């Protein structure tokens, strides 16, 4: 049940209607049931896995909290983290490790591989669980007493599949002091849902066709301009796809009275790579900072250790995205850029930042590491070729760029949320018309981050 399907919107409307129709005591069980229904609509066989992880972390957190001795608390934390990571490692990384081991001992790539289906959203809910366990260990978060509450924290359907990665203190603050959303929150929520849907279907999906055209048949498009066309099309696609999903998730949560953190802040206007990571997938960046980079020592142990910490953090961040060397290289590429930026001590201009980030996306989109390198070589070397973008898509991107710059300066989105009804209605009508006219609706193109 993808967010961009009529079935999902029917599910959302029914859940919203029941949520507000039922007495308060029944709302949490309703959301939990709806979330499991949503999860099981993808693959019901993974429900026991989600339940198991929930049970392990719920119990472990209670034990960690109850333990007085630091050694026991640490042991419990390590065991529970190991359990979480073991599940993640098995489902996500087993075949990757097996293929590399096979290569090492000279056996065929799939000699030790297994037929493993990746459970939906496992990378996201595992990170959410880990942050909860660590927060409980650090005594910054009380262990949750009610198992339904905890299960809802892990499975809440707006963010179950691809985040944002919500911290326990944020979620439970909303859950335990729940109040009906204000009119302004409802306005923001509904607009975000439609805004996100338009981002996904009217921008990301049409650009996915361009990106697929290039990356799907490299031989047919020799030259630098086709390479740039394909890479930039993917840069547009991945941003509007993921931020569109996130807008929808945040908007839906708001409609239920939950406040998710901002996950994107116009990342392609970033001045420098560090600035980019303050604007791109913010909930993951903060998670990596708080639970990996800072525990590694952050920037407190000298320049070389800082660079090493940056590199380790970004390599693992890359690996989190996918079990493939190309994601490691992508992470390493960003780690190197971050370290270089820090070493130079000066932010990179916006345009160069965008170009560097776009080059990084090649590792994300290309089928293999070898193909990535070949594409990057084409971008800077060889025949010129022709631009693959039709004129109207170039115009569309220029309009979107102007809108992004205006948002940066004047926050027009928030102005629309607070605008008179007619102006709010007009903005939403334009979004709906855009969806109707340029949205790809024949096929529901899956969200890119659903694969992680």
């Amino acid at each position, binding site marked *: 049940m993808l967010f961009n399907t009529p079935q999902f919107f029917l599910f959302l409307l029914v859940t919203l209607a029941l949520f507000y129709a039922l007495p308060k005591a029944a709302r949490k069980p309703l959301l939990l049931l709806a979330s499991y229904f949503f999860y099981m609509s993808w693959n019901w066989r993974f429900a026991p896995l989600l339940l198991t992880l929930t049970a392990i972390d719920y119990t472990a957190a209670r034990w960690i909290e109850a333990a007085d001795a630091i050694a026991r608390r640490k042991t419990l934390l390590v065991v529970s983290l190991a359990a979480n990571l073991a599940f993640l490692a098995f489902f996500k990384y087993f075949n990757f490790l097996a293929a590399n081991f096979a290569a090492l001992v000279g056996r065929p790539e799939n000699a030790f591989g297994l037929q493993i289906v990746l459970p939906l959203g496992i990378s996201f809910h595992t990170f959410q669980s880990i942050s909860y366990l660590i927060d409980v260990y650090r005594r910054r978060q009380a262990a949750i007493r009610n198992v339904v509450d905890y299960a809802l924290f892990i499975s809440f359907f707006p963010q179950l599949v691809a985040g944002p990665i919500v911290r326990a203190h944020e979620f439970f603050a909303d859950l335990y002091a729940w109040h009906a959303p204000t009119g*302004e929150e409802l306005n923001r929520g509904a607009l975000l849902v439609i805004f996100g849907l338009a981002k996904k279907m009217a921008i990301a999906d049409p650009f996915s066709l361009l990106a697929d055209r290039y990356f799907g048949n490299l031989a047919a498009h020799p030259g630098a301009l086709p390479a740039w066309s394909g890479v930039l099309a993917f840069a547009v696609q991945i941003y509007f796809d993921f931020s569109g999903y996130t807008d929808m998730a945040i908007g839906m949560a708001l409609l239920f009275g939950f406040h998710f953190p901002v996950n994107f802040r116009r990342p392609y206007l970033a001045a420098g790579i560090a600035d980019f990571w303050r604007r791109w997938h913010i909930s993951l960046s903060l998670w990596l900072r708080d639970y990996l980079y800072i525990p590694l020592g952050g920037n407190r142990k000298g320049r070389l250790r800082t660079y090493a910490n940056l590199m380790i953090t970004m390599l693992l961040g890359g690996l989190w995205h996918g079990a493939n060397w190309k994601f490691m290289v992508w992470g390493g590429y960003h780690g190197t850029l971050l370290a270089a930026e820090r070493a130079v001590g000066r932010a990179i201009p916006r345009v160069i930042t965008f170009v560097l980030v776009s080059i990084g996306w090649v590792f994300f989109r290309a089928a293999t590491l070898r193909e990535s390198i070949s594409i990057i070589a084409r971008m800077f070397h060889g025949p010129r070729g022709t631009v693959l973008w039709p004129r109207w898509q170039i115009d569309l991107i220029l309009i979107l760029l102007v809108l992004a710059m205006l948002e940066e300066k004047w926050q027009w989105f928030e102005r629309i949320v607070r605008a008179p*009804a007619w102006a709010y*209605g007009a903005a*939403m009508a334009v979004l709906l*018309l855009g969806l109707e006219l340029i949205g790809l609706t024949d096929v529901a193109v899956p969200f890119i981050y659903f694969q992680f």
Partner: protein
Amino acid sequence: MLTTRGFGLRLLCAAGMFILLEGALFRTGFYARLLEPNSSAGILRSILYDEKQRRPSGLPEVLTIGDSRMGLRARPANEISNETGYTFATIAMPGSGPRIWYYMLRDIDPTHRRYAAILIGVDEYDDEDYEDIANREMDIRYVTPLLRWSDVVPFAASFPTWQMRWEAARAALFKGYAYRADFQDLLANHKFRMKKLEAQQRMAGDLRYNQPWTDHDLRGLSVDWDKRTIEYPPGSSDSKKEMLRNVLLRETADQTGARGAYRSLWYGRIADLYRGSTTKLIFLRLARGPVARPYRVAYRTAAVRELAARNPQVILLPEHAFDSLEQPVNFGDPLHLNERGAQEFSRMAARQVAHALGR
């Protein structure tokens, strides 16, 4: 402080503005003028546009409608206007059917008084089931520009499957959705589209009126119906032979009555359109092919005959009036008349219509 009532008002505003915006673009005829001229909806729009622009001749007028087999060409029919006393015009359109004709007639003749008669060409007066005509997706693409809000339910309900009902309702409700591919093509090739539209505006009407049909014929064609073998015209290509085989030797399907129900519904709606007006509805059975297939079907219904029997406004021309045209020399392919056949048919039909109308 905004309230939830304010939120409701905003959603209403959004819905209202969307309807207004979409309506201004797609329900005022604004976008229809920009449709790709060679698309289904574009062809329909241009045929209707030409007919709306045509100057009245001063004589009573007969409008002919049908699919690509409706070989009545206005020019030869009008060359004998002195004899018949009528001017003929045609809005026959390839690939169309009674459902599309209904919406075309409603659009072209809103007062139901413009024409002395509507001449409808049909393949048979009886209803033979051989294709699922009621469930054709193409109909949606053709008539989207002509659909109104009030058509959502009746148009959608006229399709037999839920899948097509949904498609039809969506096209009637959200015209922008139906025009999506056309709109994206316009964005991508707007200069080329504008040039095409200008050229089409300049000459389409004259072109349709004056352009001769094919001068190919099928001389040498004969069929042994018992042995189910065909002697092809000399020099026939493989594709032409295949087409002849597919059309002339097609298997007879189970007679379910579905086509009868469909024709009864839409001819009935066309008759309702003209109820109380002085316009006659005249049906004629077209020349069926270069060689007529023998009757081997146990027909269950005859929608046209039943309509004529209960409605004095409906006239059936003699069923065999055009049998003499069913010769290989008059056909360019197994379905369509050639120039010679169309000229002859047009004059014959014009005289038959004049006779039926009392001249």
